[in-house]
């Protein structure tokens, strides 16, 4: 609902009282969800320029040039509120929305990624919804993505009890096209405005406003939309075909705020006025009021602006696919959105006014809990490291996510070279050009230190992409927080944005797309600050593609120093010290140096694999390597560069900028790492006996058969399927 201040502002700008329809339209467009009124001031300063950036954040999707006139489009969206009340439909329509953003640029979607957040699965509390949410969100994404034939190639799942009775569902999509085919988004006087796809119905009324408040007990399921992936698939094919036939002057998908937001944003984008007749809109039921038609969020709808001369070709294509469409108006004038119904003008508003909601200047204050968290940890001495490692591997935050990935068709399209579950996924553009992508987040780190937590997400996402042999070329960010009206939460948001600005400026990697989602709260509590970062990397040569599979004969190195940084780690969290300790920091200079060293090693063809050390630290990383290669690994922990006072800290610290790499040419690896002045050390080797053997000098610390590691690592299957 509009605040009193906003109402006064609106009336002053209009020079008259708005009518009820106009208020509904403004209410949707000025919702936090559509207007970014609390965040615009800060996200505007994210670095978004670069030589590859064709279109930066702001349009439906960002566009990056990757050579030979090829472009990739990328976008990220969330569907948190709807998924929390109706996980299947909420998650599915989240996929639909982001896919339409990709086709809105005239590009074909080639990959989906998702980052999901739930409360812990092994909650003793029988009333926990976590498993139900997790199961149905994954099924929603799977049923939608699989049906439209776009592979879900990578993702990330995190479990933390701040998401109790709630969930975060972030979906990112990548599109591929030719630079010349990118929709220019222009309009000429007299162009036709066509609404195509699903008939407009009473589903999803006021969804945008629903997403812009706290989730209360009265779960509002009617605000959740109904998914139809088959129609989406037809829209993809028809839009790509129409775009190739040069039929389309401008496209926009209908998302939050329905027709109202779509038309006003589109009219603003093409800098032209629209005359629209709501009676022409094809609807699901006969008795819809103009207000309902304007703000319905029925899915799988797109608006196209078509030159009159091209209309017959456009119709031919849409008829072939059996897609319903209606010509709802024409381009006329410069700024006004003029809505007609049954011969009368029922709303007439300046688009400029609609899309520029008055910004909110929110107060910001450092949260009190940050002053109370203890920097030091006083933990009991550990005797049995084996059981700690097995426990960590069975933690769903670290363990195998095949239960998720195998429900997604991750191979359709014949592009998925490195499949989900590895450091980052690699998709084929053509036989000598590949894109590497990864989403990363860490709510625990971001809660204890929103600045370094966010910096860590950026560092990790880039490192994962580097591990596959790719150079990071673009960042997408999805900033998810509680209510911006709470100064302490707003402070964490601002710190998070600062981190992205600092990182991207230093690394010279642009932000090409992003989104802000506030009000992620239930009645019991706000979520932890949960920025999700996506990195897009480019691999320019087929021989650079690097997998994460150690083989017999590899000498193992660690690159980067391990610090006593236990704050927010899975290790300390699992034993009840969730609010203690120093969060891992990122030294940008070292981060950049280590990334470039690993890329150089890969480009020289010197390494067999590179693996990022993140959640669960060196211990989990080495176990993952042993499992993925089904090989034994022998490591002398004493050789690892570190300042840790205890073996468990060394094993499970989550310090950034570290890689474990394996090579069959160890001398050349050393030579290059020395020349780049990296901190590194040779730490061990791959063995034929299938045992993970970690010792400190001669003292045995961990000694476990790979089968036992794998068994713990697959715990999620037992939890979800009981098998």
């Amino acid at each position, binding site marked *: 609902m509009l605040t009193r201040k906003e109402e006064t502002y609106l009336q002053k700008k209009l020079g008259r009282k708005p009518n009820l329809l106009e208020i509904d339209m403004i209410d949707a467009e000025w919702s936090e969800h559509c207007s970014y009124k609390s965040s615009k001031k800060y996200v505007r300063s994210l670095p978004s320029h670069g030589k590859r950036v064709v279109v930066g954040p702001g349009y439906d999707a960002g566009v990056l040039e990757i050579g030979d006139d090829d472009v990739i489009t990328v976008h990220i969206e969330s569907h948190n509120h709807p998924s929390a009340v109706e996980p299947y439909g909420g998650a599915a329509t989240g996929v639909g929305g982001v896919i339409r953003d990709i086709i809105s640029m005239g590009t074909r979607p080639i990959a989906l990624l998702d980052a999901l957040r739930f409360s812990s699965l092994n909650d003793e509390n029988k009333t926990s919804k976590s498993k139900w949410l997790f199961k149905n969100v994954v099924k929603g994404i799977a049923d939608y993505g699989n049906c439209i034939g776009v592979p879900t190639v990578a993702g990330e799942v995190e479990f933390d009890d701040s998401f109790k009775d709630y969930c975060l569902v972030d979906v990112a999509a990548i599109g591929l096209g030719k630079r010349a085919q990118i929709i220019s988004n222009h309009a000429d006087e007299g162009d036709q405005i066509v609404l195509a796809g699903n008939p407009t119905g009473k589903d999803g009324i006021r969804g945008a406003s629903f997403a812009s408040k706290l989730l209360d007990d009265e779960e509002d399921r009617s605000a959740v939309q109904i998914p139809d992936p088959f129609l989406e*698939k037809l829209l993809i094919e028809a839009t790509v075909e129409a775009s190739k036939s040069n039929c389309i002057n401008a496209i926009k998908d209908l998302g939050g705020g329905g027709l109202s937001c779509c038309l006003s944003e589109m009219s603003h984008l093409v800098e032209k006025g629209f005359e629209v007749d709501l009676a022409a809109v094809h609807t699901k039921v006969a008795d819809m009021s103009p207000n309902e038609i304007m703000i319905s969020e029925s899915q799988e709808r797109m608006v196209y602006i078509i030159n009159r001369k091209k209309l017959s070709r456009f119709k031919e294509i849409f008829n072939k696919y*059996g897609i319903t469409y209606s010509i709802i108006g024409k381009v006329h004038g410069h700024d006004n959105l003029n809505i007609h119904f049954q011969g009368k003008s029922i709303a007439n508003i300046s688009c400029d006014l609609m899309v520029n909601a008055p910004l909110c200047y929110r107060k910001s204050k450092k949260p009190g809990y940050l002053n109370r968290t203890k920097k030091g940890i006083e933990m009991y001495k550990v005797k049995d490291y084996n059981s700690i490692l097995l426990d960590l591997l069975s933690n769903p935050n670290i363990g195998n996510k095949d239960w998720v990935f195998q429900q997604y068709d991750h191979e359709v399209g*014949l592009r*998925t070279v490195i499949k989900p579950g590895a450091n980052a996924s690699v998709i084929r553009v053509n036989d000598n050009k590949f894109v590497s992508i990864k989403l990363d987040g860490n709510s625990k780190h971001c809660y204890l230190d929103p600045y370094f937590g966010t910096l860590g997400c950026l560092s990790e996402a880039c490192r994962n992409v580097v591990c596959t042999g790719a150079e990071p070329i673009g960042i997408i960010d999805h900033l998810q927080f509680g209510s911006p009206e709470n100064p302490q939460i707003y402070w964490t948001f601002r710190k998070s944005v600062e981190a992205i600005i600092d990182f991207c400026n230093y690394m010279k990697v642009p932000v090409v797309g992003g989104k802000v989602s506030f009000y992620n709260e239930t009645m019991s509590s706000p979520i932890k600050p949960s920025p999700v970062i996506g990195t897009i990397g480019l691999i320019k040569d087929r021989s650079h593609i690097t997998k994460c599979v150690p083989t017999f004969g590899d000498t193992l190195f660690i690159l980067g120093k391990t610090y006593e940084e236990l704050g927010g780690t899975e290790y300390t969290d699992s034993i009840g010290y969730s609010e203690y300790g120093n969060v891992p920091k990122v030294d940008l200079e070292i981060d950049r140096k280590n990334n470039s060293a690993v890329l150089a090693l890969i480009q020289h063809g010197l390494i067999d694999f590179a693996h990022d050390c993140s959640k669960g630290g060196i211990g989990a990383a080495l176990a993952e390597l042993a499992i993925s290669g089904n090989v034994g690994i022998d490591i002398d922990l004493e050789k690892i560069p570190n300042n840790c006072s205890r073996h468990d800290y060394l094993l499970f610290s989550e310090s950034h900028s570290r890689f474990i790499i394996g090579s069959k040419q160890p001398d050349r690896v050393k030579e290059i790492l020395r020349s780049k002045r990296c901190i590194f050390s040779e730490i061990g080797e791959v063995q034929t006996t299938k045992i993970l053997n970690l010792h400190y000098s001669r003292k045995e610390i961990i000694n476990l058969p790979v089968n036992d590691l794998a068994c713990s690592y697959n715990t999620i299957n037992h939890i979800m*399927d009981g098998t």
Partner: protein
Amino acid sequence: MKLGIVVFPGSNCERDVHHVLNDVIGISAQYVWHMEKSIDDYDALILPGGFSYGDRLRAGVIAAQSPILEAIKKKAEEGLPILGICNGFQILVEAGLLPGALIKNVKLKFSCKWLEMEVLNVNTPFTNLFRLHDKISIPIAHGEGRFVIGDDKLHDLYENNQVVFKYKYQNPNGSTEMIAAICNEKGNVMGLMPHPERASEPILSPDQKKSNAGLIFLSLKNFLSSYIKN
């Protein structure tokens, strides 16, 4: 030699099959929209995977009513090689060109993963380059791939050598006797649940080893070359 790839609304592997046939195997293939009534130009047909009509009602059941199916049935009768992959297999079963039924996976979940299958019949246009009991590494990606058939008809399948591939080592969906692919009595119509087009380029296989699943298409090419010459 020209192949037709039959495209229904909601098919989504047609471009993959097109790429593999034209660019990897070296057979000229083109799309055939499901509204076409005449398919006389083609030496063989492939019905690709996907979700024709969104799998509504039951996978393949609506596509089986498309105008082109009448023409396909006639061609099947005449002996034209016809291969249904995944959703294509489901359509062929729904159209009555192949026996049995494909129902929801026993775990009621979609399953996308690589596994092994074994060749049991090398006398079809799609398997003539294999040796009996060859093992093939290949991915599946389906939610309704559990092949079921009555006991008497199962007996017939074995009698007539219609079981072409079986899953090896694990049954991914609960199929009767681990059956992954069957053909009609004449052997010219085959349906299989796994996706050979996804295993025809070494770069796409998980261990980057050359999978021999491409032999399915090469067998077809081989069959057609000798057939056309004669």
